Structures are given as structure tokens and as C-alpha cells.
């Protein structure tokens, strides 16, 4: 069925507009669902039920929370830098939709299969750390400033292993185009051919999305709320929304790069459509991210930096070289 719909949409602007509407709906629903799931996972890991009151098993809790957030006053602290303070939450949300432009949900379910797909996602994901730095600094709040500084440190440490691990995959596919990267995994997912790169990517991606055990920019038990201490109401809501949408994007990229995207294992599709395979993988990865958060203690600032520079970067450089040699030999 999806094939006929996609074919009807053609490849021009109609496809982009339809895609945009679907993406808007999907990203909102996805964020609502993920926030609920996070609270449920947290609850069950801590042997409590999590939200139960609003709707069956609390499924409508996030909608109630969202309405509450809209009803909250937007307070700008007196001593803050007003313009930057207001811009930051908009800036953090601005780039998240762009990633969906190139994410491959199925063989034909890519809004626009650009030749720079992978680069586009990494280029736009950089905005989030910029927004965090702006917001944290503009707040003129000590906790927020510390959070912002840590966020930059984290980005400085984990951007490189992330890019290097991706590079190992690109060396094998010779393409940034998502459709080609996924198609190259028809028989073997890259997680079997590139286990080290996959592991490094996942660790670095956890750090890039500021998720525990790398949540030191937020670190609620030491920095109140880190970079968004001064943000209330819907401005906080935007940071939150962007974080959960970014989690989805990171998991989707991991699923496409290392877990075969829309394809089943070893070329067996088991009768499931590609979209289902893709979403299963993405949500399993998202569950793992949540599992991390509620079971691992937070790492210390210097441990975080040194782990990256002493372990992850040398390892990813070595992995890149080995890949380069092996690609030559085959």
C-alpha cells in the first residue's frame, strides 16, 4: 500500500510537502510517546508503576503535561541576555525536522534521497550544542553556565569518534546516500562487519544527545537542571521536545548505518514490510538508551573527556585504518 501512496506523491514538491506534514505529525506523536515510555521504563526499573492516572496506563499523561506547559508563564530573568535567551529554545528545535528529510523509513519512504544525506544530519545536529551554549550563557545563572560549559566539553570530546566511526562505514559504501548505505547491508548488517565502529557510534551518540551516563550538562542532582535551569513553560518544553526528537534521529541513523535499516537480518524479511523492520530497530535502540539512563551512574567531567581521547579516538582511528586495509584486500 505504501508503494502506491509514494508513487502517487511523485518525486517533486508534492512529495516534499506531504512528507513535511507527515513528519510534523510523526515527530510530535513520537515525542509524546517517548516521554511516556521513558517514564514507564524509569518506573519499572525502579520497581514502581510510573504514570497510571491519565488514560490507560497513563498513556495520555504527556498530553496533559504538554497542555500544562503551554499554560505556564514564560519568565525571562531580569539579568539575562534577553535576545539570546529567547532565541535559544527556538534554535534548538529549528534543525530537528531537517533530519527527517533524508532518513530512510523504507526503500521508497525517503522524502528526498540526497547524495549528502549523512552529512546533512551531522551538520544540522551541531546546532543543538550551539543552542545549549547560547541558552546556558544567556541565562546569567551559575548552574546554567556550568551546564553549558560541560555541554561544549562533551561535544569537543565526542564529535570526533562519532565522525570517525561513520567514516569507517562510508569507506565501505563510498556514499553518503542513505538508500545506498542501507542497500549495501542486504546480506550482512554492518554491525557484524564493523562491530567496533557500531559500539563507538552508539556511545558517542549517547553523549551527543546528552543522555545519561553522559548527561553532565543537565545533571539534575548537582546542577539543578543544568543549562535550562532558568527556562520555564513552553521554552523548557521546546528543549525537551528537541531532546526526544534528537534521540529518535540518532537511533534512526544508528539503525540505518549498522542495523540494516529497513532490511531484515541476513536478507530474510520474514514477510514484514520495511517500515516495520525500521521502526522495530529504532524503538529497540531507543529503549536501550532509556535503559542506560536508569541503570548507569553519571560519569565525571574528566573521566568523560579522557575516556574519549584515550580510548574512543585511538580505537576509532585504528578501526578506520583496519577498514581501509581490508577494503583494499577484498
Amino acid at each position, binding site marked *: 500500500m505504501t508503494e502506491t501512496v509514494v508513487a502517487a506523491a511523485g518525486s*517533486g514538491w508534492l512529495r*516534499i510537502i506531504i512528507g*513535511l506534514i507527515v513528519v*510534523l505529525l510523526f515527530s510530535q506523536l513520537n515525542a509524546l510517546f517517548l516521554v511516556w515510555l521513558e517514564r514507564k521504563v524509569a518506573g519499572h526499573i525502579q520497581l514502581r508503576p510510573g504514570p497510571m492516572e491519565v488514560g490507560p496506563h497513563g498513556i495520555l499523561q504527556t498530553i496533559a503535561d504538554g497542555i500544562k506547559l*503551554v*499554560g*505556564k*508563564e*514564560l*519568565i*525571562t*530573568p*531580569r*539579568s539575562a541576555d534577553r535576545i539570546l535567551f529567547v532565541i535559544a*529554545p*527556538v534554535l534548538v*528545535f*529549528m*534543525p*530537528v*525536522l*531537517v533530519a*527527517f528529510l533524508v532518513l530512510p523509513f523504507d526503500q521508497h519512504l525517503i*522524502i*528526498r534521497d*540526497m547524495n549528502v544525506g549523512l552529512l*546533512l544530519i551531522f551538520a544540522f545536529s551541531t546546532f543543538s550544542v550551539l543552542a545549549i551554549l547560547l541558552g546556558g550563557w544567556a*541565562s*546569567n*545563572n*551559575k548552574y546554567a*553556565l556550568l551546564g553549558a*560549559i560541560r555541554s561544549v*566539553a562533551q561535544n*569537543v*570530546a565526542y*564529535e*570526533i569518534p562519532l565522525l*570517525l566511526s561513520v*567514516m569507517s562505514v*562510508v*569507506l565501505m559504501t*563510498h*556514499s553518503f546516500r542513505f538508500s545506498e548505505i542501507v542497500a549495501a547491508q542486504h546480506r550482512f548488517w554492518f554491525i557484524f562487519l564493523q562491530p567496533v565502529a557500531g559500539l563507538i557510534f552508539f556511545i558517542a551518540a549517547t553523549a551527543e544527545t546528552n543522555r545519561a551516563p553522559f548527561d553532565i550538562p543537565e545533571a539534575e542532582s548537582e546542577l539543578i537542571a543544568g543549562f535550562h535551569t*532558568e527556562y520555564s*513553560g*513552553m*521554552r523548557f*518544553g*521546546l528543549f525537551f521536545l528537541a531532546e526526544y526528537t534528537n534521540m529518535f534521529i540518532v537511533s534512526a541513523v544508528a539503525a540505518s548505518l549498522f542495523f540494516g535499516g529497513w532490511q531484515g537480518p541476513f536478507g530474510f524479511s520474514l514477510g514484514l514490510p520495511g517500515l516495520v523492520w525500521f521502526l522495530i530497530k529504532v524503538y529497540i535502540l531507543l529503549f536501550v538508551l532509556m535503559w542506560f539512563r536508569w541503570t548507569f551512574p553519571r560519569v565525571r567531567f574528566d573521566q568523560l*573527556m579522557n575516556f574519549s*581521547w*584515550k580510548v574512543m579516538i585511538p580505537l576509532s*582511528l585504528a578501526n*578506520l*585504518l583496519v577498514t*581501509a*586495509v581490508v*577494503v*583494499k584486500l577484498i
Partner: protein
Amino acid sequence: MLPKELLTDFLAVALFVAVGVVFAVVPLIISSLVARRSSGVTRDETYESGMETIGSAWIQFTAAYYIYALIFVAFDVDVLYLFPVAIAYGGYAIRDLVEVVVFVGILSLAIVYAWCKGVFEWQPKK
């Protein structure tokens, strides 16, 4: 003039960014229309765990990781150069392999150097 396909790519990205901004701004506007306004002296005070705010946060602050940041800048630019190489890789007999090895080798020396210099040792401030 750009090729039509490329132009569509750029415009599509621009459209998605613009809609992202609109989607972020609209709830803020709705919120500022419907939300109740509070008043009081401490309303827009900087939050400091309920204590009175002490000074500004815009002070000189040791970003102890600035040397990491310097290596990062060098590294990030170098990694950038590897992307086109990764695309073209495999098209030449042995030359590209040698060049990648040399390039990554020199890149790795930066880490070895920083390691020997003790950049990765954090001393508590006396």
C-alpha cells in the same frame, strides 16, 4: 545557475528549517497569550536554590578543557578532509591506501604528542 535537482534539495532544506522555526514559535506565542502573569519582586530574579543571588555568572571562568578544545579544532578540520577521501576510496591501485595511512598516521601523532605532554592528566587546582 544551480541544477534543478540541487536547487530543490536546498529549497527543501530551507523549507524544513523554516517550518521548524514556525513550529517552535507558535506554541511560545500561544503560551504568552493564555498564560497567567504573576507579579512580585523575586519573580524575575536569577534562580540560585532560593538564596539571594550573589553577583553575576558572567565572570572569568576556567574552562579547564581548553587544550582539548584546541586539539579538537585541529582534529575536526582534519576529519573533514577525510570525508571526500572516503567517497573516492578504492578507485586507485594502492595510492589511496598509502595516503590515508600517512594522513591518519600524522593525525594520530597529535594525540601521542598531547598524551606525552600530559594534556590528559587533570590536576586538581591548588
